[in-house]
């Protein structure tokens, strides 16, 4: 029998549980104090390796540092095709061309006559760094934390443990300092090998710094500061407080695109010195983990095991939301904030989320503001309309979630190793064999089956949005497609069979020996998820009666095979560094071969005609002449078919109703400053979607009680019974 007091207590517990369930969302992973705050919630899947702008080269790292570091240029947020716009610079400069004697040449001078291009970049005055202890000064005006003792560092475990912070104005010398850092012997900048061919004096500077570092370090591994201001770099100099000059070998217009990447962001020497002090690295206090910039946000919490937090930089200059873009942007509401001061969001909280299920669930619960579309959730999130377009499912529409799509500036292709005796070489026989395989591999089907329609079949190496890419039949690959009713349509398999027969393999058998044609597909994709894709690939070649042998191996072995030219067919991909055709066409440039040169030309394609055209095209300005040459190059490669051109993936982004101003931009990384939120709507929706349901717990407890009571009765009966 339950006593009345116990009964009352139990009742009040149940009542309290139910009353709580009526208000707050119990599954809210964030503090309730943040309910209405202007915070964007996002996730990161992999901890970033490097946040130093001289080293960082991954999109998951750019997600953070592009909001903090400001190179001189950026991509215009709304304009398409992608266009450079000034960021901290006053304008995007025109180069001054010089001949070998240093005489000025006209802007339309032929590339071969240009010995040097000089870019003079003027930055805006009045740009200030985020508050940081590296700039803190004491009462005498000396830098406060630039000669830290072991004792002073004793209680310091994070940047926030320094009690004082300061700032200073951005100057041109900071940009010069960062370019010098690309050659620092301890930084291993991934773009050094490219830049030392272009920036005048950088190659020698590498050797200079190596010697200087050895002298300064004296065998020490840590706590070594190499003052780069003491070592001049011939091709880069600060002209005055707000102007610096970069001298490039020959003509290389793509340097401006590089200058829109964090590699060319300013680095204050104070910050470099601050983090180079003895004892800092042991506490994980390094420039590689704590960015110091002038951007709209600063990294205030850096716990890559759990959470990264960007907060509004109080010193951020007056930058405004753009008022120009594409005509359809107005209808999308993308001009609603035109002219308003950036950024709109106070704080961006990135939580580590490695698994898909929790990530997707939290997005649906309103705890993440944006999400990609995961393969396993595709059917739940997306449906195809009658016209074949994609749109969000009814369930998503009910939540106010909307979909944004864009084609990535990437290409994923099937490559033929051109050094291979069967599929390689520029002979007509091998060419026809590759063309036949290219027709047989139905990428439209692959996109439909494995990517849920998220992609387009490629017609060449250039993805949409890159100069030289042409829509429809004008940009069609005529060796694989026919133009039917103004639309490219893959050639029938009979055409592939014909080509195969002409290449000496009628019905998939060697005409001379009668042996079946065996092709080998090398891949590092070995998981069970990849099995279906590999089976599909085998099936594609079976259409030609060609047997495909899958040689699945681990990543390291696959890479080794590629470097040694031992693969035959393989899959590879490339994401654009910048929106210029040169960044894709160089993947087929002969001297850039993987075998021998360790370059990015994985197919080892080496066509003299293509190479000559590439050397002309790479440094040309966009215009009709360049377009005509690119068309010629595309025609050569389509005929030679060193790649079966594969796909350009389509990116899907889902967004809640309380997020505004998103326009997919596959080139720009510093886009968080444009986003705006409506936190109150989010708070209401979260509570409505996440009301706790407590009755199942009570039901389980009740069931347990019901099961136990008869057992207790049975046991008591046994205890009272006579011994047996």
């Amino acid at each position: 029998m339950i006593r009345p007091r116990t009964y009352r207590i139990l009742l009040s517990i149940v009542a309290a549980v139910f009353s709580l369930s009526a208000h707050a969302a119990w599954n809210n992973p964030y503090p309730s104090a943040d309910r209405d705050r202007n915070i964007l919630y996002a996730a990161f899947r992999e901890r970033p390796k490097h946040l130093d702008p001289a080293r960082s080269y991954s999109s998951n790292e750019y997600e953070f540092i592009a909001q903090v570091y400001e190179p001189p240029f950026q991509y215009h947020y709304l304009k398409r095709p992608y266009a450079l716009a000034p960021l901290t610079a006053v304008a995007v400069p025109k180069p001054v061309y010089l001949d070998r004697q240093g005489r000025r040449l006209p802007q339309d001078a032929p590339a071969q006559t240009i010995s040097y291009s000089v870019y003079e970049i003027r930055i805006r005055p009045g740009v200030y760094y985020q508050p940081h202890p590296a700039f803190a000064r004491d009462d005498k005006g000396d830098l406060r934390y630039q000669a830290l003792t072991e004792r002073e560092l004793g209680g310091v475990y994070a940047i926030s443990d320094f009690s004082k912070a300061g700032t200073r104005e951005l100057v041109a010398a900071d940009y010069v300092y960062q370019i010098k850092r690309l050659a620092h012997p301890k930084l291993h900048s991934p773009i050094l090998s490219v830049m030392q061919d272009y920036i005048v004096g950088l190659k020698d500077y590498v050797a200079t710094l190596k010697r200087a570092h050895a002298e300064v370090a004296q065998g020490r591994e840590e706590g070594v500061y190499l003052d780069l201001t003491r070592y001049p770099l011939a091709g880069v100099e600060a002209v005055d407080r707000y102007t610096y000059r970069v001298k490039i070998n020959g003509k290389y217009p793509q340097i401006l695109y590089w200058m829109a990447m964090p590699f060319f962001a300013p680095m204050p020497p104070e910050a470099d010195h601050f983090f180079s002090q003895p004892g800092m690295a042991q506490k994980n206090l390094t420039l590689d983990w704590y960015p110091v910039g002038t951007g709209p946000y600063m990294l205030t919490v850096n716990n890559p095991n759990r959470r990264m937090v960007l907060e509004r930089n109080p010193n951020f200059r007056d930058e405004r939301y753009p008022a120009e873009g594409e005509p359809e942007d107005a209808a999308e509401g993308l001009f609603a904030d035109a002219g308003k001061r950036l950024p709109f969001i106070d704080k961006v909280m990135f939580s580590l989320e490695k698994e898909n299920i929790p990530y997707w669930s939290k997005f649906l619960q309103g705890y993440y503001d944006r999400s990609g579309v995961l393969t396993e959730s595709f059917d739940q999130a997306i449906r195809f309309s009658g016209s074949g377009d994609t749109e969000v499912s009814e369930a998503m529409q009910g939540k106010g979630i909307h979909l944004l799509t864009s084609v990535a500036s990437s290409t994923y292709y099937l490559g033929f190793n051109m050094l291979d005796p069967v599929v390689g070489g520029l002979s007509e026989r091998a060419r026809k064999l590759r063309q036949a395989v290219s027709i047989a591999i139905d990428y439209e089907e692959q996109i439909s089956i494995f990517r849920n329609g998220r992609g387009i079949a490629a017609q060449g190496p250039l993805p949409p949005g890159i100069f030289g890419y042409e829509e429809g039949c004008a940009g069609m690959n005529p060796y694989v497609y026919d133009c039917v009713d103004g639309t490219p349509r893959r050639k029938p398999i009979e055409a592939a069979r014909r080509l195969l027969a002409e290449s000496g393999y009628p019905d998939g058998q060697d005409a001379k020996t009668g042996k079946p044609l065996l092709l080998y597909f090398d891949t590092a994709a070995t998981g069970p998820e990849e099995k279906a894709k590999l089976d599909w690939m085998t099936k594609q070649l079976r259409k030609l009666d060609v047997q495909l042998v899958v040689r699945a191996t681990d990543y390291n072995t696959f890479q080794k095979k590629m470097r040694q030219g031992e693969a035959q067919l393989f899959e590879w991909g490339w994401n654009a560094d910048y929106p210029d055709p040169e960044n894709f066409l160089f993947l087929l440039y002969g001297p850039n071969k993987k075998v021998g040169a360790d370059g990015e030309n994985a197919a080892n394609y080496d066509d003299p005609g293509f190479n000559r055209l590439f050397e002309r095209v790479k440094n040309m300005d966009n215009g009709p002449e360049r377009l005509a040459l690119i068309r010629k190059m595309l025609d050569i490669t389509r005929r030679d078919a060193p790649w079966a051109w594969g796909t350009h993936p389509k990116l899907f982004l889902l967004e809640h109703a309380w997020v505004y101003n998103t326009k997919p931009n596959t080139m720009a990384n510093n886009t968080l400053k444009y986003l705006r939120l409506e936190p109150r709507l989010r708070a209401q929706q979260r509570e409505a979607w996440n009301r706790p349901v407590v009755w199942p717990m009570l039901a389980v407890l009740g069931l347990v009680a019901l099961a136990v009571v008869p057992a207790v009765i049975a046991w008591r009966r046994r205890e009272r019974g006579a011994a047996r």
Partner: protein
Amino acid sequence: MIAYIVRRILYAIPILLGVNLITFALFFFVNSPDDMARIHLGVKRVTPEAIAKWKEDRGFTRPLLYNAAAQGTAKLKDTIFYQHSLRLFVFEFGRAEDNRDIGREIAERMWPSLAIALPTFLVGVLVYITFALLLAFFRGTYLDTWGVVLCVAMMSVSVLFYVIGGQYLMSKLWHLVPISGYDDTGLLAFKFLTLPVVVGVVGSIGANARLYRSFFLEEIGKDYVRTARAKGLSEPRVLFQHVLKNAMIPILTGVVVVIPSLFIGSLIFESFFGIPGLGSYTIDAIHSQDFFVVRAMVFLGSVLYIVGLILTDISYTLVDPRVRLE
């Protein structure tokens, strides 16, 4: 006993040396330092110079195990194995591939691992023993029969099922707790810990309760229990005062050995629940082929396991006065 412990610690040295050697061989004989460099430098614009620099910075240009070109002890000392693996014996873990101090990372990540593992362990042991005792208590009744059936069913299901099922029910459907994440402050910490602890305990009930039940039933059949009953002791008293105490020896074998390992966390739980502990640290390191972290975690795991075995031996002497360590 002290002599015994000292002897066990000395035995541990060759074991740890062997573990180190195997880890080292798995990394350096399967993958060359060049392969590691390529993985860490990324896939774009990796030049031979960058690879050479990467190896030089990490001392991977030395011979693996024996330096024929060196003189004297340097033949062994000036090798990758000596420089990178033997320092672990003085708990110098060095730096991870991302240049972060591994010792500091371990010290930071140990607490989230413990925050999950300790309550799961304590609540788990309590629940398993209670459940097993209940089954023994109700032996012969339908509750015992169906309890054992339930145990067998529960132990037959993969732990991933409990994880995903728990997340689906408790967070997605009933909205009771966050589906994943971690915080170490106040109520939020409790909210985040509830689900993994519940799933951890429920997921192991089947195997453990069934095992413990068999220990209890074995004891129940012994003469001293019959004597206790003949003295007129009640069944609960017989079970809790006599049977439980004597069944503790086999239980301790399984329980004490895992106590030190609680520090290194759970690979699956930490990954699925987003717990920033040592389990997820190890998994990440394996995925990214971070030799420095993997060898540190393998070494630490081995040390803790050996400590666990020694503690188990010591615990025998505490629960059974007949046991002497010599």
